[in-house]
Every structure is written in structure tokens, then in C-alpha cells.
């Protein structure tokens, strides 16, 4: 479904990705782990084609189509959707207006809001303005549920979220991804308690250092932290 080959990207003159190879086949859910600053979010903005991401080499294919130079909104129309980690505040643009644009009247936004524990009065609020950390995550996921992309990317949906809401978010994502494909980015891995993933990748220094069975990789990292990875010869080589 998503196939990234040898992707090297610069943002503001700084190399953030160096030769990334990643493939997520249709129907699979992968998790992307990695310490802060390893390039996880840069990979997402590159998949979306934000103009700040200058592609030096490599390509991105989605369902067989080369999307490497496609504008963001066209990629989104092909079926890519992202729940962002740090969405910008947009004064005067109401959450409800964006949701209505996304659902196009096909699904009930109010019901959807319930599944992410977002009160309906949020619909009249300015996008991301004055939202708490947990509210930001939940409204991002709500927008993604309304958007219904075939391929969903969740960027750190679990960071800064309390235990009760972690369960709400975990269940909502799990339900949503049942018949879809997706990429889940997490630094701490908390969300994985609620989700079954097919493959794990670990990112270091702007590239995928290793990929494999999620249980092995996740358990080790959860127990020993990324320090354990740093001792791995594969990672050492990348330095």
C-alpha cells in the first residue's frame, strides 16, 4: 500500500532522513518507534509532501502511484490521513466546520465525537486553541475518524494522555483500523496495549535501523529503553 524507497530529505538545510526504506502492505498495521529527534515526524511530513521537505533522492509510492512530488491535498484524496502530534492553532476556524467538511454528511459527527470522548460544544471552538494535551490528541483522532482514510498515520497519539483517555484513544484507533492499513508512531509505546500490530520498525539517525516482529522489539525497548538499541551494531554503524 505504502512503499518508500531510499528516501533522503532535507528540512531547512538539515538532513532529516537518509535513505529510508519502508513498506506497509495493504491490511497491515505497523508501528514506528524511535527516540526523540530520530526523524519519525519528518517521515510523516515527507509522506504528506509538505513544501518544507526537500526530497534529495528516493521515492514514495501509494497504491502503485508515485506520489513523491504530488501536492498534499491530492495525496490526501488518494486515501492518506494523519493525526498530528502538534497541530497548529487556527483562530476562527471551528472544529465543527472541519468535521462537516470531512464527513460530507455521510456520518454523524456527534456520534463520532462520543467515541473519542469529545463533548459536542467543542464543535464551536476554534481549532486547537486552548485545548489541553489530551483534547488535542482526541480531536486529531476524531478528525481522522471523520476523514476515513484507507491509510491512517497516527503521530504519537499517546504522548501526554492520561490513563482513562489512553484507553478511549486506544479503543477508537483499534476499531478504526480493523479493515484498514496504518502506521503508528510512538515514542513510549503505551498505546500498543490496545492494538495489535503486524510489524515494528525502529528509527535512528533519520533511517530505519531495524524492522521485525513487534513483540520482540517492543518488549525489549519497553524494558530497557532506546539505550539498548544504541548498543546494537546496526545502530552503531549508522552514527
Amino acid at each position, binding site marked *: 500500500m505504502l512503499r518508500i524507497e531510499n528516501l533522503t530529505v532535507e528540512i531547512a538545510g538539515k538532513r532529516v532522513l537518509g535513505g529510508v526504506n519502508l513498506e506497509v502492505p495493504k491490511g497491515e498495521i505497523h508501528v514506528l518507534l524511535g527516540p526523540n529527534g530520530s526523524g519519525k515526524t519528518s517521515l510523516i511530513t515527507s509522506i504528506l509532501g509538505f513544501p518544507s521537505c526537500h526530497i534529495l533522492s528516493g521515492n514514495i509510492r501509494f497504491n502503485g502511484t508515485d506520489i513523491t512530488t504530488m501536492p498534499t*491535498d491530492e495525496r490526501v484524496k488518494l486515501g492518506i490521513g494523519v493525526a498530528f502530534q502538534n497541530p*497548529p492553532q*487556527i*483562530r*476562527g*476556524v*471551528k472544529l465543527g466546520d*472541519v468535521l*462537516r*467538511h470531512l464527513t460530507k454528511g455521510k456520518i454523524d459527527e456527534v456520534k463520532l465525537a462520543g467515541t473519542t470522548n469529545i463533548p459536542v460544544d467543542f464543535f464551536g471552538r476554534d481549532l486547537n486553541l486552548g485545548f489541553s494535551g489530551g483534547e488535542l490528541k482526541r480531536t486529531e483522532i476524531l478528525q481522522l475518524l471523520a476523514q476515513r482514510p484507507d491509510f491512517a498515520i497516527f503521530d504519537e497519539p499517546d504522548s501526554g494522555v492520561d490513563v482513562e483517555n489512553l484507553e478511549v484513544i486506544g479503543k477508537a484507533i483499534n476499531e478504526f483500523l480493523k479493515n484498514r492499513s496504518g502506521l503508528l508512531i510512538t515514542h513510549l509505546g503505551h498505546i500498543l496495549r490496545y492494538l495489535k500490530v503486524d510489524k515494528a520498525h525502529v528509527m535512528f539517525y533519520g533511517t530505519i535501523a531495524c524492522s521485525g516482529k513487534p513483540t520482540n522489539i517492543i518488549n525489549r525497548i519497553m524494558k530497557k529503553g532506546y539505550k539498548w538499541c544504541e548498543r546494537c551494531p546496526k545502530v552503531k554503524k549508522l552514527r
Partner: protein
Amino acid sequence: MPKGKKTTLKAIEKPAAFGPDLDVEAFKRETSYWPACKISTLPRDIAQRALSVGISTEEKERAGTYFQIDHSAILQTIRETFSGKAEIMSTKKALKKYRWAKEYWWEIVDANTDKFTALAKLKWDQGYFIRVLEGQKITIPLQACLFISKDNFNQNVHNLIIAEPNSEAQIITGCTVHPNVQSGLHVGISEFYVQKNAKLTFTMIHNWAQNFNVRPRTAALVDDDATFVSNYMCMKPVKSLQMYPVAYCKGANSRVRFNTILHGNQNSHLDVGSKVVLQGKGSRGEIITRAIASDNAQINARGLLVGEHEDSKAHLECRGLLLSDEAYIHAIPELVGNVKGTELSHEAAVGKIAEEQIQYLMARGFSQTEAESLIIRGFMDINIFGLPDALKRDVKRMIDATFGGAL
């Protein structure tokens, strides 16, 4: 203040403190007389322009209507339901009918301020008188339309608005020109008296023409426990518009709020501000301005808060959005504290649309144009006006018509 005709005549030479100077003699004064008519029988082209400034031609949507074309007051009616509760008529008629009206005439606006106030005194062409009677709550808006039908014409109106004690009303005023009009000069003097415990919300919408000049001169006197909300919106091109309305919070616990939404486009020169003078104990003021400049527009967005009472508080907020490299916005917020204890504050920001906001919305499937339009319309958030739903819908429609509809 000196009120003699001599000083007024002298002031006719005096340029305004702000805005480009104009030769007031360069405009025509002669026009034909327009006979009285019903709002439903207005010529279609006039009715359509009136609609563009929020004037409803459906009688049931408004409590009363004043309609002036050039120098003629063609309509001055109050709906039967509201008769005895509010009055609406030309100021010429009102000054004849009520001797006491003179006490409010040229009382808070000085005719000697500049050539435009002097012009309005020397060559006065009607204007509207609106009186909301004591204790009356007018549940649907009153409306007034000032219309110019001739090119290169000069119209000088003088309006008088009195909200008597414990009354409440919404007024919408639309000022516009016939589609054939390109240039001209409109001078509008407005004196507002918001008496004890009254609440008046005044919304003014302008839609002029590319070579048209506009010089409103407005003052409001706000009494004990009274509230005055003044909303202003100008979205269409104009050659020059300069105004700096002032509200005196004279009464204890008086409240004033100025909300302004400006869109400067083409070669428009807008010099628009609001002043609040806090004189009463517990008086409060707020000025909120949103200004968008595109094409070659120049906008000076002024604001002045003056604290003259030790128990007074006011805030000024001005946000400017630049949509073109040739456009210009100068935010000039000023605070003057004359006594200790007054609390005055301001925040101002001028910038362009943040790239990350556009990208974020594009990641939700909006095209770049849709995303920009959504952000701009969000920036011009009419919720700051606090309008009743029907009026809010009309105003929203105007903004959507100007900035396109992504939704």
C-alpha cells in the same frame, strides 16, 4: 466649545487630523428629489445594493426602517407592533417635532473639528433620528440605509440616536452607492446617547466604490450602567475612508465595545480607529479590530484608550493579516492613563497566513485555496459582533461572498 457660524466657516478649510486631505468643493451638490416609497417598491438595483449592506427589504425582519437617497428621506416608518416604543424619522423632521432634540445636536461632536464636520454643519442633508423610548425592548433590529445615486456627489448626513433609560435595541445601518457611482464624498455625523441602564448595539456596514471618499464623525455618550456596542464592517474597495469614533464612558459601570472588521483591497486607503474615554467609576471598554489588506491597500488601524477614573479598565486588541506584498498595515494602539488605578492594556499583531496552518488543513483534504479562504474567514470571525442570529447570517453571507466558500 465655540459654536458660532464664523468658526465653523473657518474650520471648512481645516484638514482632518488623519487621512488624505480632500477638496470638498470638488463634488456635486445638486440632485433630483426622490419621492417617498415603500421598501418593497424600491428599484431593483437599489434594493440589491441595500441588501449588500445588511438592509432587509422584507418589512417583517426589521422593527423600523429609514431610507435616504441622496438628500431625500424616502422612507421613515416604524412597524405597528413597535409604534410607541421606538421612533425613526429624518433628523430634520425630528428637530422640528421635538424642541428638546436640539440639546443633543452638535453636543458631543464639535462642528469645528475639521472641514468635514464643518461641511456637515453648513450643508446638511438629513440623516436619521432613532429614539428608543424609556423601558422599551425592541426585539428585532431597526435599520437605516444611506444611499447615493449620483456619481461625484457629496452627501452630508447627521444622525441622532437616543436610547432612553432602561431601553434596549439593535440598529443596523448600511451605507452604499448605486452601481453606476464611481466617485463621491459621504460625510456622516452620528451622535449616540445611551442613557441609564440602556443597551444599544449598533452595526454599520459600508459598501462604497473604488473612487469614493468617506468621512464619518461619530461620538457616543454612555450613562450609568449603560452598554454601547458599535460594530463596523467595510469589505469592499473605497478610495479613502477615515474615521475615529469616540465613546465617552461617562456613567458609573458604563460599558463600551468597538468591534471592527476591515478588508482593504485594490487601492483602498483605510484609516480607521476607535477611542474609548473612561470617565465613570467602574467603566469598562474594549476595542477589537481585525484588518485584512490585499492588493495595494493601505490600512492604518488606530485605537486609543484613555483612563480618567481610578476604577476603570479597558483592553484593545488589533490583528492584521497581510495578503499581498504591496499591501500595508500599520497598527497604532495607544493607551493614556491619567489617574492611578486605571488599567489599560493592548495587544497587536500583524503578519501573513502561517504556512503551517495551510499545510495542516491541506492534510485534511482542503485545497490550498480552500484552506486560505477558511483561514481568512476564520480570521474575520463575526462572532465578535455578538449579533442576533438573523443578522449574523446576513453578515456571514457577505464575508463568504467576498472570500469564497470552502464549506
